[in-house]
């Protein structure tokens, strides 16, 4: 029986549960033995001219090795969309948390003492602290550009005639609030220049190879001069893609001082200086007939890009995924990205797709409410049908496979939807101040959207062991176990003889890494491709050894041996012998280039209780189908869904990064940012479904982000549904108690006085 599809406990775990793994801050490498410690002095103001920096006091503080500012660096600023972002603030600061100076000390405990002594004079400028302020343009972040709008995409002018045939048209502005990725391990790096003139950077990253290329470019050296190693990485969620600007400054400082440098930010720094996610304001207009047929949909996206637009793909990806799971005949989209005096926005679990799904799924509920139809029924009427795949959307996506109605029905069945609706009615009739709310979201998303491929290498050794190198860069996903399972399945080698390595650019020079739920479909396909090459080469070698025709040979994967087909009692060859015959090692090093995006989908039902007296909304149940094709390891597959659900639920109910009107963050510590805990979540109810794709060697789609995407609008819709009988039509996420209370007050039907 194949190991693929069975529940396999992770081989990664032993180190993590006994010694706690080796994250950047845990490194005790010889090269770092005399490393200095680093801290960045960061801007405490959102927008200001720097009129002076006095580092004298800091420079003479105990243990200080160096204090550096933009004037010392002499590095070309990097491109951020149409503008340039300095490595250290140069003349102007544009968000609270922007790095202004670097302080190096001999001891970690000296860092904060010295950093306090760096005296920066700020001449405050008006802060652009909201999307409205950015669009207004009264204050510009980059006056040379003439506007805070840094990207416009889609329709220049909307055409209202698409709604002409509609009996009902609903429109709603939907905030997709800014959230903090907040991996438990904050950002960290260690840099050492060797006597060979090469720079080694240990970096908490999702993509060592991208980071290597970035660092080589920014430091003005050849790629062969830089080695990046990703040790154990304590979560990324999209916010650790490649190298952040700090790493370049650290590499420069290590060169300048001739000392190895190590850096770990504080959590409070992390919450203002690591990129945030989401931050869109979307206006939806949806029209159709009273029978539930949707005829036209419009999505108008405004992306808050923060102070430096590092990820302008986000709003256009939202446009591309605008229609979700529906066959809307007429669709219009537009996006504008603006800069504000806030932390830069980049990828966060879902990165552009959650925003699209949240918009269309709220729009569908608004329309259902308007025509008085059950939201499940409205969705069924408008789903893209199974026979329509591959489906080309009006917004340029080519969906591979989908069973959208089946996914929804499975969820509703598992949840007992009709009974829940009855319970909701009973409570309302009894005048219960605690309302029950049911929220549905049906979604489709895109994984591996970059289609850039991935590397994979497989070596079979004469002792029968297998070592594989993947270009993927797992940091919690358990891909080391998953890929070993694929190899075990393909080669017939037991798991314990297989090693999977990743994350060191000297071992894997060419790779993309992990983001966008790409790893299994691309990294996994690459490993499969390499295994297939090894098998093909082994067939030739075994044929020679057994003096048979290659086509007459077969690999018995149960036993891991080559034998002549139909002659089971004849001589067999193990992998060890084949590797020996190959001259000591049988190896294949491939690039899986035939990568195409895939489109996982699913449906979620959230059940919330809302205390209408206090406004508190609590999630009672969430039932989810997340279909990402065939499952290699159900253990980690479900683990990815759990994590995604938690983050998606958190965005709907709890988490939001806030700023005051002067651009000061008000959620800059974990005491203030409502990071979801175990006590706020129910057990998750997962329903399995697996619809394969034909777009890669494994038939798989990505699962890393799917559950995040479905759960946010499901919970959001559930809260509105709970309040619907009291006259509430919409409220913004997160559905905090005060928001719910205010919405009830506004509706004038709250039961509390």
């Amino acid at each position: 029986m194949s190991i693929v599809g069975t529940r396999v406990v992770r081989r990664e775990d032993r180190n993590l549960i006994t010694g706690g793994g080796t994250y950047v801050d845990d490194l005790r490498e010889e090269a770092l033995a005399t490393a200095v410690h680093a801290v960045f002095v960061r801007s405490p103001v959102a927008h200001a001219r720097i009129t002076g920096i006095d580092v004298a006091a800091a420079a003479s503080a105990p243990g200080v090795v160096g204090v550096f500012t933009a004037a010392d660096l002499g590095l070309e600023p990097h491109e951020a969309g149409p503008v340039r972002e300095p490595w250290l603030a140069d003349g102007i600061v544009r968000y609270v948390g922007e790095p202004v100076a670097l302080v190096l000390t001999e001891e970690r405990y000296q860092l904060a003492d010295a950093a306090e002594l760096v005296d920066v004079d700020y001449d405050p400028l008006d802060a652009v602290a909201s999307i409205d302020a950015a669009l207004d343009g009264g204050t510009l972040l980059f006056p040379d550009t003439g506007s805070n709008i840094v990207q416009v995409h889609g329709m220049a002018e909307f055409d209202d005639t698409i709604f002409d045939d509609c009996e009902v048209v609903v429109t709603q502005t939907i905030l997709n609030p800014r959230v903090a990725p907040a991996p438990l391990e904050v950002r960290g790096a260690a840099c050492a220049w060797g006597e060979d003139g090469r720079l080694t950077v240990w970096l908490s990253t999702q993509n060592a190879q991208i980071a290597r290329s970035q660092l080589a470019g920014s430091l003005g050296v050849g790629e062969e001069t830089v080695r990046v190693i990703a040790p154990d990485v304590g979560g990324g969620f999209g916010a650790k893609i490649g190298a952040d600007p700090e790493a370049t400054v650290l590499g420069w400082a290590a060169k300048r001082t001739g000392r190895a440098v190590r850096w770990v930010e504080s959590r409070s720094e992390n919450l203002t200086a690591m990129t945030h996610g989401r931050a869109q304001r979307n206006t939806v207009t949806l029209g159709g007939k009273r029978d539930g047929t949707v005829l036209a949909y419009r999505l108008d996206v405004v992306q808050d890009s923060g102070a430096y637009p590092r990820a302008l793909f986000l709003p256009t990806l939202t446009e591309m995924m605008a229609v979700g799971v529906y066959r809307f005949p007429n669709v219009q989209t537009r996006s504008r990205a603006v800069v504000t005096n806030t932390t830069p926005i980049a990828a966060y679990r879902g990165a552009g797709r959650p925003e699209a799904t949240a918009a269309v799924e709220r729009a569908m509920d608004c329309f259902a409410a308007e025509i008085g139809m059950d939201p499940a029924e409205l969705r069924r009427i408008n789903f893209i049908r199974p026979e329509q795949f591959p489906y080309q959307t009006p917004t340029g996506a080519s969906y591979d496979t989908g069973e959208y109605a089946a996914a929804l029905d499975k969820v509703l069945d598992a949840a007992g939807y009709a009974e829940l609706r009855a319970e909701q009615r009973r409570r309302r009739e009894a005048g219960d101040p605690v309302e029950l709310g049911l929220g549905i979201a049906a979604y489709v998303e895109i994984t591996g959207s970059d289609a850039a491929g991935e590397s994979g290498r497989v070596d079979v050794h004469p002792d029968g062991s297998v070592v594989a190198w993947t270009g993927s860069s797992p940091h919690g996903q358990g891909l080391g176990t998953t890929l070993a399972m694929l190899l075990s399945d393909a080669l017939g080698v037991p798991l314990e003889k297989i090693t999977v390595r990743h994350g060191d650019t000297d071992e894997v020079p060419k790779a993309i890494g992990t983001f966008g739920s790409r790893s299994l479909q691309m990294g996994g396909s690459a490993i499969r491709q390499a295994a297939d090459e090894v098998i093909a080469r082994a067939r030739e070698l075994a044929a020679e050894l057994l003096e048979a025709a290659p086509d007459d040979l077969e690999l018995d994967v149960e036993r891991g041996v080559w034998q002549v087909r139909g002659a089971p009692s004849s001589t067999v060859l193990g992998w060890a012998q084949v590797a020996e015959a190959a001259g000591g090692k049988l190896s294949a090093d491939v690039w899986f280039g035939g990568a195409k995006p895939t489109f996982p989908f699913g449906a979620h039902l959230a059940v919330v209780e809302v205390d209408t007296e206090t406004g508190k909304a609590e999630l009672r149940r969430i039932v989810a189908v997340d279909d990402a094709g065939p499952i290699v390891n159900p253990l980690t597959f479900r683990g990815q869904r759990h994590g995604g659900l938690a983050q998606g639920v958190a965005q709907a109910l709890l988490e939001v990064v806030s700023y005051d009107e002067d651009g000061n963050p008000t959620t800059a510590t974990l005491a203030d940012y409502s990071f979801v805990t175990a006590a706020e979540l129910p057990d998750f109810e997962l329903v399995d479904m697996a619809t394969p794709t034909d777009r890669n060697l494994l038939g798989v789609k990505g699962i890393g982000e799917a559950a995040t995407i479905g759960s946010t609008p499901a919970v959001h819709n559930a809260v509105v549904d709970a309040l619907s009988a009291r006259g509430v039509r919409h409220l913004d996420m997160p559905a905090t108690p005060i928001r719910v209370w205010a919405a009830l007050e506004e509706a004038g039907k709250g039961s509390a006085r």
Partner: protein
Amino acid sequence: MKVSIEVNGRPVAGEVPDRTLLVHFLRDTAGLTGTNVGCDTTSCGACTVLLDGESVKSCTVLAAQAAGHAVTTVEGLEGSDGTLHPVQEAFREQHGLQCGFCTPGMIMAAVSLLADNPKPTRDEVRAGLEGNLCRCTGYHNIVSAVIDASGQEVDR
């Protein structure tokens, strides 16, 4: 100042600044890097260790306060023969960890919770671990792991 703490059953002594936090004593003086720092506001629980058998956040205890007391870190759970502690075993079996960064603190918090409440319900586990943040697992499998470690059936 000179600080001496019994860490995982053996005395560890060091000359450290008065302001040294217990977590840094453990990581730098005792050389035990399993205990992680995840925040600066006593919020995340990644640094949770046992102090005289009770869970504490070692980022909010001075090394000096722990002097003369006994500390257990995640490195101290495994048996000398390599046998995993039941909580460690359950975290692996139930996939109660992904990136692993919160895990040492989460495991120590779970050990302490089970010492007080040997047969908790899932809700009691959730409430009992409210001081430990995890970004990867959504907590579901962490709860299952604690239930499993308590010898109760996990309904997954």
